[in-house]
């Protein structure tokens, strides 16, 4: 684990560099013929959306490993991934909503992607609430890990069912709801931002991991000291 502590600053600097490069590319990117300046929102929205799912995938992988091997470090990693994912999801929703206002004419549309994202956010919040509501650390870890798995199974069903609902029940009335095709000069900044956001996610994840691990160590230490004080008054 010592390697992670050494890696973290490196990751931070690389991310910063990529973000600056991405920002420069975005500022100089040509405007889209149809969507004008609003295309610049996509450079932030799409990487955030990818990361919100990627962090959930990471939490799922760690939870499976935890349930399988009962290794506490996997539980720490899973716990640390949740708030990071929630952060990305919140930005995805906010930027999607702000993008929707000029493009669709409304702040919100119940399409498959937005609905799944909203459910994902509630799921992240529920996971944090569940984690903090159970005092027994082993029980809380197990319950959260199982809940992560249930969510991982449910998310595709939600996406699929909302999509189905939209096509069978109310054909898209908003028009142009899909992500526009992006090519050439517009693609490079998107790729740079996607890589930069993977770095940002990794950095934030490492940061949360340090916090969660330190918090658990502190709790254990203070618990031990209390017992010690009780033994020798």
């Amino acid at each position, binding site marked *: *684990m*010592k390697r*992670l*502590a050494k890696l973290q600053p490196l990751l931070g600097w690389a991310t910063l560099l990529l973000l600056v490069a991405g920002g420069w590319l975005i500022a100089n990117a040509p405007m889209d*013929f*149809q*969507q*004008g*300046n*609003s295309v*610049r*929102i996509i450079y*932030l*929205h799409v990487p*955030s959306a990818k990361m919100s799912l990627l962090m959930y995938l990471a939490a799922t992988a760690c939870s499976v490993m935890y349930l399988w091997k009962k290794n506490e470090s996997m539980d*720490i990693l899973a716990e640390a991934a949740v708030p990071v994912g929630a*952060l990305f999801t*919140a*930005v995805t929703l*906010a*930027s999607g909503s*702000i*993008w929707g*206002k*000029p493009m669709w004419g409304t702040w919100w549309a119940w399409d498959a992607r937005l609905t799944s994202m909203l459910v994902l956010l509630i799921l992240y919040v529920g996971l944090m609430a569940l984690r903090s509501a159970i005092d027994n650390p082993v029980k809380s870890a197990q319950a959260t890990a199982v809940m992560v798995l249930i969510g991982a199974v449910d998310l595709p069903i939600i996406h699929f069912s909302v999509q189905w609902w939209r096509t069978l029940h109310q054909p898209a009335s908003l*028009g*142009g709801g899909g992500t526009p095709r992006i090519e050439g000069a517009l693609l490079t900044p998107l790729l740079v931002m996607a890589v930069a956001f993977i770095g*940002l996610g990794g*950095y*934030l994840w490492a*940061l*949360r*991991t*340090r*916090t969660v*691990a*330190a*918090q*658990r*160590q*502190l709790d*254990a*230490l203070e618990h031990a000291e209390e017992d010690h004080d009780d033994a020798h008054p």
Partner: protein
Amino acid sequence: MTTPTLDYTPYVLAVYTVALVVYGGALWSWRRQAAQLEQRLREHGATPWLERNPGEPS
């Protein structure tokens, strides 16, 4: 869809401001939190878990 007549710049600025505030705020507060907790750990004379060598006892 027709050629845009709307000026999207305020929306673009809004999105980047939100992102900057949310990501920047999280980065700042989580860094602070991690540093504070690890500082308290060192005051207790313990090595943070992440800086420990593999196999080192707690």
